[in-house]
Protein backbone atom coordinates (compact mmCIF):
# COMPACT_ATOMS: atom_id res chain seq x y z
CA UNK A 1 0.00 0.00 0.00
CA UNK A 2 2.83 2.34 0.90
CA UNK A 3 4.37 1.68 -2.51
CA UNK A 4 1.34 3.05 -4.38
CA UNK A 5 1.28 6.27 -2.35
CA UNK A 6 4.97 6.75 -3.01
CA UNK A 7 4.59 5.87 -6.70
CA UNK A 8 1.81 8.44 -7.17
CA UNK A 9 3.89 11.07 -5.33
CA UNK A 10 6.97 10.29 -7.43
CA UNK A 11 5.12 10.45 -10.76
CA UNK A 12 3.21 13.60 -9.78
CA UNK A 13 6.36 15.41 -8.70
CA UNK A 14 8.20 14.29 -11.86
CA UNK A 15 5.34 15.62 -14.01
CA UNK A 16 5.51 18.88 -12.04
CA UNK A 17 9.27 19.11 -12.72
CA UNK A 18 8.72 18.73 -16.47
CA UNK A 19 5.68 20.99 -16.80
CA UNK A 20 6.45 23.78 -14.31
CA UNK A 21 6.34 27.27 -15.79
CA UNK A 22 9.38 28.58 -13.93
CA UNK A 23 12.63 26.72 -13.16
CA UNK A 24 12.28 27.57 -9.45
CA UNK A 25 9.03 25.61 -9.31
CA UNK A 26 10.79 22.75 -11.09
CA UNK A 27 13.48 22.75 -8.39
CA UNK A 28 10.87 22.64 -5.62
CA UNK A 29 9.09 19.73 -7.34
CA UNK A 30 12.45 18.02 -7.79
CA UNK A 31 13.08 18.41 -4.05
CA UNK A 32 9.78 16.64 -3.31
CA UNK A 33 10.75 13.94 -5.84
CA UNK A 34 14.15 13.31 -4.24
CA UNK A 35 12.79 13.19 -0.69
CA UNK A 36 10.06 10.74 -1.75
CA UNK A 37 12.69 8.64 -3.51
CA UNK A 38 14.68 8.56 -0.26
CA UNK A 39 11.58 7.16 1.46
CA UNK A 40 11.37 4.48 -1.26
CA UNK A 41 15.02 3.61 -0.62
CA UNK A 42 14.30 3.21 3.10
CA UNK A 43 11.37 0.92 2.27
CA UNK A 44 13.78 -1.12 0.12
CA UNK A 45 16.17 -1.22 3.12
CA UNK A 46 18.86 0.83 1.40
CA UNK A 47 19.66 2.98 4.42
CA UNK A 48 22.91 4.51 3.26
CA UNK A 49 21.53 5.39 -0.16
CA UNK A 50 18.54 7.12 1.42
CA UNK A 51 20.81 9.33 3.50
CA UNK A 52 23.10 9.96 0.52
CA UNK A 53 20.08 10.84 -1.60
CA UNK A 54 19.03 13.54 0.89
CA UNK A 55 22.57 14.83 1.42
CA UNK A 56 23.88 14.88 -2.14
CA UNK A 57 20.75 15.52 -4.20
CA UNK A 58 18.60 17.68 -1.94
CA UNK A 59 21.53 19.25 -0.15
CA UNK A 60 24.11 19.85 -2.84
CA UNK A 61 22.75 19.50 -6.36
CA UNK A 62 19.49 21.37 -5.81
CA UNK A 63 21.27 24.22 -4.03
CA UNK A 64 23.58 24.40 -7.04
CA UNK A 65 20.53 24.64 -9.32
CA UNK A 66 19.04 27.40 -7.14
CA UNK A 67 22.31 29.35 -7.20
CA UNK A 68 22.50 29.18 -10.99
CA UNK A 69 18.86 30.29 -11.30
CA UNK A 70 19.62 33.21 -8.98
CA UNK A 71 22.74 34.07 -11.01
CA UNK A 72 21.05 33.89 -14.41
CA UNK A 73 17.95 35.83 -13.40
CA UNK A 74 19.86 38.62 -11.64
CA UNK A 75 20.15 40.53 -14.92
CA UNK A 76 17.45 42.81 -16.24
CA UNK A 77 15.70 40.55 -18.75
CA UNK A 78 18.02 37.59 -18.68
CA UNK A 79 15.44 34.90 -18.06
CA UNK A 80 13.44 35.14 -21.24
CA UNK A 81 12.71 31.68 -22.59
CA UNK A 82 11.02 31.04 -25.89
CA UNK A 83 7.97 28.84 -26.29
CA UNK A 84 8.57 25.19 -25.51
CA UNK A 85 8.42 22.43 -28.07
CA UNK A 86 5.44 21.00 -26.22
CA UNK A 87 2.67 22.39 -28.49
CA UNK A 88 4.49 21.30 -31.64
CA UNK A 89 4.37 17.60 -30.79
CA UNK A 90 1.06 15.76 -30.99
CA UNK A 91 0.41 15.03 -27.32
CA UNK A 92 -1.86 12.00 -27.85
CA UNK A 93 0.90 10.28 -29.81
CA UNK A 94 3.37 10.97 -27.02
CA UNK A 95 0.95 9.67 -24.41
CA UNK A 96 0.36 6.52 -26.44
CA UNK A 97 4.11 6.03 -26.78
CA UNK A 98 4.65 6.26 -23.03
CA UNK A 99 1.79 3.86 -22.32
CA UNK A 100 3.14 1.39 -24.88
CA UNK A 101 6.62 1.51 -23.38
CA UNK A 102 5.23 1.00 -19.89
CA UNK A 103 3.20 -1.97 -21.11
CA UNK A 104 6.28 -3.50 -22.76
CA UNK A 105 8.40 -3.09 -19.63
CA UNK A 106 5.64 -4.42 -17.38
CA UNK A 107 5.01 -7.50 -19.52
CA UNK A 108 8.73 -8.10 -19.95
CA UNK A 109 9.24 -7.92 -16.19
CA UNK A 110 6.48 -10.49 -15.75
CA UNK A 111 7.78 -12.71 -18.56
CA UNK A 112 11.32 -12.81 -17.18
CA UNK A 113 10.12 -13.30 -13.64
CA UNK A 114 9.92 -17.07 -14.18
CA UNK A 115 13.42 -17.25 -15.67
CA UNK A 116 15.24 -15.16 -13.12
CA UNK A 117 15.37 -16.35 -9.53
CA UNK A 118 14.01 -13.81 -7.11
CA UNK A 119 15.69 -14.31 -3.80
CA UNK A 120 14.47 -12.77 -0.63
CA UNK A 121 17.30 -11.47 1.52
CA UNK A 122 18.69 -14.33 3.55
CA UNK A 123 19.49 -12.41 6.67
CA UNK A 124 16.45 -12.15 8.86
CA UNK A 125 18.15 -9.78 11.26
CA UNK A 126 16.27 -6.81 12.59
CA UNK A 127 16.52 -3.53 10.76
CA UNK A 128 19.25 -1.44 12.30
CA UNK A 129 21.56 -4.29 13.24
CA UNK A 130 25.00 -3.97 11.72
CA UNK A 131 24.96 -7.21 9.72
CA UNK A 132 21.50 -6.81 8.15
CA UNK A 133 20.94 -6.37 4.43
CA UNK A 134 21.37 -2.77 3.41
CA UNK A 135 22.96 -1.61 6.64
CA UNK A 136 25.63 1.07 6.54
CA UNK A 137 28.22 -1.32 7.99
CA UNK A 138 27.69 -3.88 5.21
CA UNK A 139 27.73 -1.16 2.59
CA UNK A 140 30.97 0.32 3.90
CA UNK A 141 32.62 -3.09 4.16
CA UNK A 142 31.75 -3.83 0.53
CA UNK A 143 32.78 -0.38 -0.68
CA UNK A 144 36.25 -0.60 0.83
CA UNK A 145 37.01 -4.25 0.05
CA UNK A 146 35.40 -5.98 -2.92
CA UNK A 147 34.25 -2.78 -4.68
CA UNK A 148 37.38 -0.72 -4.02
CA UNK A 149 38.21 -0.05 -7.70
CA UNK A 150 34.86 1.65 -8.54
CA UNK A 151 35.24 3.70 -5.36
CA UNK A 152 38.66 4.94 -6.47
CA UNK A 153 37.36 5.69 -9.97
CA UNK A 154 34.77 7.88 -8.22
CA UNK A 155 37.61 9.98 -6.84
CA UNK A 156 38.94 10.47 -10.38
CA UNK A 157 35.50 11.46 -11.69
CA UNK A 158 35.05 14.03 -8.93
CA UNK A 159 38.51 15.48 -9.56
CA UNK A 160 37.73 15.81 -13.27
CA UNK A 161 34.47 17.56 -12.36
CA UNK A 162 36.23 20.00 -10.03
CA UNK A 163 38.92 20.83 -12.59
CA UNK A 164 36.31 21.15 -15.33
CA UNK A 165 34.18 23.57 -13.34
CA UNK A 166 37.20 25.68 -12.39
CA UNK A 167 38.35 25.83 -16.01
CA UNK A 168 34.86 26.61 -17.32
CA UNK A 169 33.67 29.18 -14.81
CA UNK A 170 36.87 30.28 -13.16
CA UNK A 171 38.37 33.15 -15.16
CA UNK A 172 36.17 34.76 -17.76
CA UNK A 173 38.74 37.34 -18.86
CA UNK A 174 41.18 34.81 -20.26
CA UNK A 175 38.78 32.18 -21.53
CA UNK A 176 36.01 34.02 -23.35
CA UNK A 177 36.87 36.35 -26.20
CA UNK A 178 36.01 39.98 -25.42
CA UNK A 179 32.54 41.16 -26.34
CA UNK A 180 33.56 43.65 -29.06
CA UNK A 181 30.05 45.01 -29.52
CA UNK A 182 29.75 45.90 -25.86
CA UNK A 183 33.25 47.34 -25.63
CA UNK A 184 32.60 49.53 -28.67
CA UNK A 185 29.36 50.80 -27.11
CA UNK A 186 31.15 51.64 -23.85
CA UNK A 187 33.92 53.50 -25.72
CA UNK A 188 31.35 55.39 -27.79
CA UNK A 189 29.52 56.44 -24.63
CA UNK A 190 32.80 57.59 -23.07
CA UNK A 191 33.69 59.58 -26.17
CA UNK A 192 30.26 61.23 -26.20
CA UNK A 193 30.60 62.07 -22.51
CA UNK A 194 33.96 63.73 -23.18
CA UNK A 195 32.51 65.68 -26.13
CA UNK A 196 29.57 66.83 -24.03
CA UNK A 197 31.97 67.98 -21.32
CA UNK A 198 33.93 69.93 -23.94
CA UNK A 199 30.74 71.62 -25.15
CA UNK A 200 29.68 72.52 -21.61
CA UNK A 201 32.97 74.16 -20.74
Amino acid at each position, binding site marked *: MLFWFLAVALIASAVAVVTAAKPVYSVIALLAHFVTLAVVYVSLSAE*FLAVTQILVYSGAILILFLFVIALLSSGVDSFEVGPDRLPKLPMPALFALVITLVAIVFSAAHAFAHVLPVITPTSQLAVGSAAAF*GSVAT*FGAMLFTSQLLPFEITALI*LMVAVIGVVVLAGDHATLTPPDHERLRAIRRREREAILREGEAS
Partner: protein
Amino acid sequence: MAVGELSNYVTLSAVLFFLGVAGVILRRNPLVMLMGVELMLNASNLALVAFSRAWGSMVGHIFAFLVITVAAAEAAIGLAIIVVVFHRSARVDVDDVTILKG
Protein backbone atom coordinates in the same frame (compact mmCIF):
# COMPACT_ATOMS: atom_id res chain seq x y z
CA MET B 1 10.17 -9.38 -2.29
CA ALA B 2 7.53 -10.96 -4.47
CA VAL B 3 7.87 -11.11 -8.24
CA GLY B 4 4.92 -8.81 -8.88
CA GLU B 5 6.32 -6.27 -6.47
CA LEU B 6 9.64 -6.18 -8.33
CA SER B 7 7.92 -5.58 -11.67
CA ASN B 8 5.97 -2.74 -10.03
CA TYR B 9 9.25 -1.08 -9.08
CA VAL B 10 10.71 -1.64 -12.56
CA THR B 11 7.60 -0.17 -14.18
CA LEU B 12 7.69 2.85 -11.88
CA SER B 13 11.34 3.30 -12.77
CA ALA B 14 10.50 3.16 -16.50
CA VAL B 15 7.72 5.73 -16.12
CA LEU B 16 10.01 8.11 -14.23
CA PHE B 17 12.75 7.59 -16.82
CA PHE B 18 10.44 8.53 -19.68
CA LEU B 19 9.20 11.57 -17.77
CA GLY B 20 12.86 12.62 -17.59
CA VAL B 21 13.23 11.99 -21.33
CA ALA B 22 10.13 14.12 -21.94
CA GLY B 23 11.68 16.91 -19.88
CA VAL B 24 14.86 16.84 -21.97
CA ILE B 25 13.06 16.62 -25.32
CA LEU B 26 10.15 19.00 -24.77
CA ARG B 27 11.63 21.84 -22.75
CA ARG B 28 13.97 24.49 -24.11
CA ASN B 29 15.19 25.83 -20.81
CA PRO B 30 18.61 24.23 -20.22
CA LEU B 31 18.07 24.13 -16.44
CA VAL B 32 14.88 22.10 -16.81
CA MET B 33 16.64 19.86 -19.32
CA LEU B 34 19.38 19.18 -16.74
CA MET B 35 16.66 18.38 -14.19
CA GLY B 36 15.25 15.90 -16.71
CA VAL B 37 18.65 14.21 -16.83
CA GLU B 38 18.62 14.04 -13.02
CA LEU B 39 15.17 12.42 -13.17
CA MET B 40 16.50 9.78 -15.57
CA LEU B 41 19.51 9.01 -13.37
CA ASN B 42 17.24 8.71 -10.32
CA ALA B 43 14.91 6.35 -12.18
CA SER B 44 17.87 4.10 -13.02
CA ASN B 45 18.91 4.23 -9.35
CA LEU B 46 15.45 3.11 -8.30
CA ALA B 47 15.66 0.10 -10.64
CA LEU B 48 19.14 -0.76 -9.32
CA VAL B 49 18.02 -0.62 -5.68
CA ALA B 50 14.85 -2.64 -6.39
CA PHE B 51 16.81 -5.39 -8.17
CA SER B 52 19.39 -5.32 -5.40
CA ARG B 53 16.62 -5.96 -2.86
CA ALA B 54 15.09 -8.74 -4.97
CA TRP B 55 18.39 -10.56 -5.41
CA GLY B 56 19.63 -9.97 -1.89
CA SER B 57 22.94 -8.59 -3.18
CA MET B 58 24.20 -5.17 -2.25
CA VAL B 59 26.27 -4.59 -5.40
CA GLY B 60 23.34 -2.64 -6.80
CA HIS B 61 23.64 -0.21 -3.89
CA ILE B 62 27.30 0.38 -4.76
CA PHE B 63 26.34 0.96 -8.40
CA ALA B 64 23.60 3.41 -7.39
CA PHE B 65 26.11 5.22 -5.18
CA LEU B 66 28.44 5.60 -8.17
CA VAL B 67 25.53 6.87 -10.27
CA ILE B 68 24.82 9.52 -7.62
CA THR B 69 28.48 10.58 -7.77
CA VAL B 70 28.41 10.83 -11.56
CA ALA B 71 25.13 12.78 -11.35
CA ALA B 72 26.73 15.28 -8.98
CA ALA B 73 29.70 15.75 -11.32
CA GLU B 74 27.39 16.04 -14.32
CA ALA B 75 25.21 18.66 -12.61
CA ALA B 76 28.23 20.73 -11.59
CA ILE B 77 29.79 20.72 -15.07
CA GLY B 78 26.45 21.19 -16.85
CA LEU B 79 25.53 24.19 -14.71
CA ALA B 80 29.01 25.68 -15.23
CA ILE B 81 28.54 25.36 -19.00
CA ILE B 82 25.11 27.00 -18.75
CA VAL B 83 26.51 29.89 -16.73
CA VAL B 84 29.41 30.42 -19.16
CA VAL B 85 27.25 30.23 -22.30
CA PHE B 86 24.45 32.44 -21.02
CA HIS B 87 26.77 34.93 -19.44
CA ARG B 88 27.25 36.24 -22.97
CA SER B 89 23.77 36.05 -24.46
CA ALA B 90 20.67 37.54 -22.89
CA ARG B 91 18.28 34.69 -23.59
CA VAL B 92 18.24 31.34 -21.80
CA ASP B 93 17.19 29.14 -24.69
CA VAL B 94 19.08 26.13 -25.97
CA ASP B 95 17.97 26.82 -29.54
CA ASP B 96 19.93 30.07 -29.46
CA VAL B 97 23.19 28.35 -28.58
CA THR B 98 24.72 28.05 -32.01
CA ILE B 99 28.28 29.17 -31.26
CA LEU B 100 29.55 25.58 -31.32
CA LYS B 101 28.25 24.92 -34.83
CA GLY B 102 30.99 23.50 -37.03
